[in-house]
């Protein structure tokens, strides 16, 4: 039997999934607390104890032992570009797509105050872009000189104007930084090229960050910590959308992942206009796009969710009095392991999740802007048109464990009263019922077709 052990070192829990590769079956799942402060192995061993009963009390030989991690703050990055809507946005997209937590995005020439901000955040990796190939050189050179003096952030990935890249590298190398030069994230104005930067970020994560986050010790047990957890989810989404050489995928899809700290939306879609008479404007969108909403979460970010939505609106959706909603939100924020204990608390939890899905999708989806011209109304599209996307997949603790996950996912759908926000209109609603997306993304690295079959089997319609 070919077995795979897939591990996700999360910020709170270490989750393990044991998979029979040939039959594409999940044999067992279990979790332990993430113990990154002491030794990462404690939590892992605790989780492994949980799956032992499924193997008659002793762990078998796993041919594949792979892990992803968002422990110890995840992969913390800063993205720097020239124009906010162009290279700075392209750099942000590259970092998000690599599964990073983006601490800040900076445009134009860095100031001393911005350098202080970067030093205070102390990112694991800085992604430095700016200028199209053959375009502006001054800004990226200025920014390299500023970064050379930075106290924090010794790992810098350069993905800017190729005509300045070598000079930028020399400046940073002389300052003792670890510098990796990769292809420009925006080589031409209308051409986004984030994949080489994403790949470089991932390699850097493997080489350096795993060590820094105290994950190296786990490598005695496993073959490698391959990527940040969000990158594993995006990897799974990509596989499920495009398929492999042996088996077709599902085509375009959107994933809503509601977590304790953030709500992520992944869209695997071209997002071209679906109506005639619509002009696309702005930076081209990556086929695999991830957005992260740091203010929308069920536990750690519960207070900021309440602040964003407002107690009155949240209470109206939950159908509970305002005071009760406010006190529940504070309670789950203060004790992140708290789960709803009665029907009323379930209602509030559901309302929180529904608004998180709603707002995260609203921010992820493209928009239509009406422009009045001598020829009548014309429409300008910014971002992706997701109205015709056929699959909407829900994942994340609250959705996976909810008695009626459909109620939450419906928050993400297109609404008649917001016709200019291009959310999915009538997708099939799917549930990642065994919480296996990250595991699928890991298995895809070694056995893509088995991983695809696993995803198709365990992501079910609701």
């Amino acid at each position, binding site marked *: 039997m070919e077995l795979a052990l897939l591990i996700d070192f999360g910020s709170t829990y270490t989750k393990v999934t044991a998979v029979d590769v040939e039959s594409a079956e999940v044999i067992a799942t279990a979790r332990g607390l993430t113990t990154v402060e002491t030794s990462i192995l404690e939590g892992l061993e605790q989780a492994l104890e949980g799956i032992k009963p499924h193997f008659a009390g002793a762990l078998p030989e796993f041919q594949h032992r792979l892990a992803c991690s968002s422990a110890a703050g995840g992969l913390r990055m800063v993205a720097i570009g*020239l*124009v906010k*809507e*162009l*290279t700075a946005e392209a750099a942000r997209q590259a970092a998000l797509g690599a599964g990073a937590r983006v601490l800040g995005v900076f445009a134009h020439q860095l100031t001393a105050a911005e350098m202080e901000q970067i030093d205070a955040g102390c990112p694991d990796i800085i992604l430095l872009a700016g*200028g*199209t190939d*053959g*375009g*502006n*050189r001054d800004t990226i050179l200025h920014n390299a000189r500023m970064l050379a003096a930075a106290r924090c952030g010794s790992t810098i990935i350069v993905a800017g104007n190729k005509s300045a890249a070598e000079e930028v590298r020399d400046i940073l190398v002389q300052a003792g930084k670890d510098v990796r030069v990769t292809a420009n994230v*925006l080589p*031409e*104005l*209308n051409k986004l090229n984030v994949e080489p930067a994403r790949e470089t970020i991932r390699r850097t994560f493997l080489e350096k960050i795993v060590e820094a986050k105290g994950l190296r010790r786990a490598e005695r047990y496993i073959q490698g910590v391959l990527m940040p957890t969000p990158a594993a989810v995006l990897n799974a989404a990509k596989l499920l959308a495009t398929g492999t050489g042996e088996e077709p995928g599902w085509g375009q899809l959107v994933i809503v992942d509601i977590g304790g700290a953030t709500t992520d939306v992944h869209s695997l879609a071209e997002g071209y206009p679906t109506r005639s008479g619509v*002009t696309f*404007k702005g930076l081209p969108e990556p086929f695999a796009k991830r957005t992260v909403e740091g203010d929308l979460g069920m536990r750690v970010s519960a207070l900021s969710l309440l602040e964003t939505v407002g107690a009155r609106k949240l209470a109206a959706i939950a159908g509970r009095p305002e005071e009760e909603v406010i006190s529940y939100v504070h309670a789950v924020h203060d004790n992140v392991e708290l789960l709803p204990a009665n029907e009323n608390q379930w209602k509030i939890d559901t309302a929180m999740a529904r608004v998180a899905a709603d707002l995260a999708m609203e921010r992820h989806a493209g928009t239509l802007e009406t*422009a*009045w*011209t*001598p*020829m009548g109304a*014309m429409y*300008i599209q910014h971002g992706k048109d997701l109205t015709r996307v056929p699959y909407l997949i829900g994942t994340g603790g609250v959705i996976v464990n909810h008695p009626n996950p459909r109620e939450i996912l419906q928050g993400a759908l297109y609404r008649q009263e917001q016709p200019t926000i291009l959310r999915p209109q009538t997708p099939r609603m799917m549930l990642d019922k065994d919480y296996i997306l990250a595991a699928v993304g890991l298995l895809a690295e070694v056995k893509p077709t088995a991983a695809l079959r696993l995803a198709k089997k365990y992501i079910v319609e609701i």
Partner: protein
Amino acid sequence: MEEEKKQLTLVLGVIGADVHAVGNRILEYALTEAGFKVVNIGVMASQEEFINAALETDADAILVSSLYGHGEIDCRGLREKAIEAGIGNIKMYVGGNLVVGKQDWAEVEKKFLAMGFDRAYPPGTMPQQAIDDLLRDFGFTQKC
């Protein structure tokens, strides 16, 4: 163009709520054929898009088309925005059906030059004229 000299980068677009795409394509083709690096931002381009594109690509000139008669309103303030963005010295050319009706061209041209454009072209101008002017303005003696 002489080989040692840097290839000139031009930002090309149709400003405002104007959707005339054909002329824009023809200009892109003619200018590319003439040896320029053309950054075409297409139709319905805002002033900010022209400025941002010029900034990222370190462009030498901005070429603005307007064919629906609202050119005067759409182009006002473009030079000032370029100055704010730190590229105040960039060359700016404008052409098309810039105003409605049969207004005296000399008056129209004066208006656009006062707005900060280096050159303004009346309806019916051939691409070759702009190409010749570009080469002359950037000190290229040899025709391509």
